[in-house]
């Protein structure tokens, strides 16, 4: 068992057993995920890496309850999400999982401020609490001056920072990010990763993200490598 910075015993956030996902391709079935075991503790900052088509996105979708595994199960923060009904699963995501996707993460008609508050608003969090938190996050991601801009007025990097802020806003148990830096140049990619790492430390939120950018991989404290849907290595860095 790992220990967190506070020194207490860390709780398990993600526990995936014997996870498989088979797609019925045109000619042959594709084993996108093939018998993956995954165990992630609270507060971890983990990268999933691997070549294109290795199953990184599929794995994140399965863990996030966006897709249903062909076999195996996923336990998130003590709840076996693979057993939840569709609407229960949506509610579970709302309260426990933050998502950041590759691009076009934001609701185009809402401002940065409203996008960050979106999840909290769906949760029914009171307006004053929400606004305070949004203000705080805007400052943390360095976009206080862009608070009232619509996504179209933000750069790609700024949009991703808003997406990260939104994912963190309601303090979920875990943030899943599928190639959050893929559409960014290396400077912005580095900045976003630094931001995520800092929020991981400050807010103590577990991050699991996929990438194939070597500079991003460096910043991860644990790197899980997938090839053909199987975990081929799982390394902890200092």
């Amino acid at each position: 068992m790992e220990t967190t910075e506070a020194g207490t015993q860390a709780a398990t956030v993600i526990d995936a057993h014997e996870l498989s996902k088979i797609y019925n391709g045109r000619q042959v079935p594709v084993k996108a995920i093939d018998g993956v075991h995954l165990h992630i503790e609270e507060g971890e900052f983990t990268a999933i890496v691997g070549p294109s088509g290795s199953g990184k996105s599929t794995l994140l979708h399965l863990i996030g309850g966006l897709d249903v595994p062909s076999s195996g199960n996923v336990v998130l923060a003590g709840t076996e999400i693979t057993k939840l009904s569709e609407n229960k699963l949506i509610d579970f995501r709302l309260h426990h999982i933050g998502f950041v996707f590759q691009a076009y993460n934001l609701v185009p008609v809402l401002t940065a401020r409203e996008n960050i508050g979106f999840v909290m608003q769906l949760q029914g969090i009171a307006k004053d609490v929400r606004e305070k938190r949004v203000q705080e996050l805007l400052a943390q991601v360095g976009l206080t001056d862009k608070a009232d801009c619509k996504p179209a007025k933000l750069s790609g990097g700024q949009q991703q920072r808003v997406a990260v802020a939104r994912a963190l806003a309601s303090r979920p148990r875990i943030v899943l990010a599928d190639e959050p830096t893929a559409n960014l140049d290396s400077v912005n990619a580095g900045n976003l990763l630094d931001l995520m790492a800092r929020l991981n430390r400050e807010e103590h939120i577990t991050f699991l993200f996929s990438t194939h950018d070597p500079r991003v991989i460096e910043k991860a404290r644990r790197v899980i490598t997938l090839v053909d849907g199987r975990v081929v290595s799982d390394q902890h860095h200092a």
Partner: protein
Amino acid sequence: MLLIRMAWLNLWRNRRRTLIAGGSVFFAVILAIVMRSATLGIYDNLIHNFVTYSSGYIEVHQKGFHEDASVDLSMEVHSELLLQLRKQPGVTAVQPRIQSFVLASGSGQAKGALFMGVIPSLEKKYTHLDRKLCAGTYPESDSERVALLGVDLASRLKLKVGDTLVVIGQGYRASTAAGKYRVCGLLQLGSPELNQRIVYLPLCHAQALLSTPDMVTSLAVQISGPAQLEPVARRLRTLLDTAQLELMTWKELYPELDQFITADSGGHIIMSGVLYLIISFGLLGTLLMMARERTHEFGIIIALGLRKENIAIMLLCESLFISLMGGAAGITSGWLLVRWFHANPIPITGKLKGMYLSYGIEPVIAVSNRPDVFYVQAIVVLLISLMLVIVPIVRVLQLEPVKALNS
């Protein structure tokens, strides 16, 4: 609230498309309103021209008079009853009349005629009979011994203003009725039927002719508008001694006229239906496009934790916004247009005028301003927008988040 706000904002992402969709609803509604009001106006006019100068919108008579229009079924009418009937809301006039069928002749041959004893001053005041005069003069007093003739009847009898009309018929209890009257004026009424058959006489002379002093065959009730027909009929029925008297609306008096209108209406309703069907296709295309191009966005918000039902609500709001904005604008403009045309009927001129006249229809386009024309459109538009949005909603409910995200 968030959903409604998002729905509203979504409309303006592609402003032009939304305006075109709303605009199509707008024009369909205006067109449907104007079309419907104009046809209703024509019907109202048709009915008005016929019933005003014959039975009234509502006729009160002795039981059996409708089946057997005999002078023997005359009645005495107490002035209190008249007063009471005239006081009822929606009633503009109650005119005592005496009706019979007679033979009318001039110098030559005789023709069957619809003989109507009326009080000239009351007719002038309430039905503006004097305005229908095309030759001669209107009786100056209610006791002048003169006759007013339908213009076509006069020409068939070869009678001119100033000539003498001879009337022969059957009076009360099989008495003989015969009289001579000076023709003081010819009437061009809005109904060809009446133009060919009507003879008006002042009531007192008609009563003298038929030996029915102080008696009338019917009370012609005029109302303030077509919509008042049923309410007034209901109210008056409660006031009448229904053991003896009978009240009939024009629909009961002339069922064929009512049936003709119903049948003709059907055609117009189908036309409006086709109009709405056409805009429905356009609207459906817009709604589908609006949903389809946001598939990825839906994937994101479903991933974040928004239930699909809520997206459905958002789509519903968008559809309602488009239709209701277009519909409200259409109904308001339609209402203004109809109000204006109602106040300023368009006179028909040229060849068409002659055609209208020969059909006995007043040569004006008079539109009706009946309120149901307007709220029917509102309901239709609402139903259309509710029905159409089902298609994109079903698609959203079937959406798989991963597929949506990848699109």
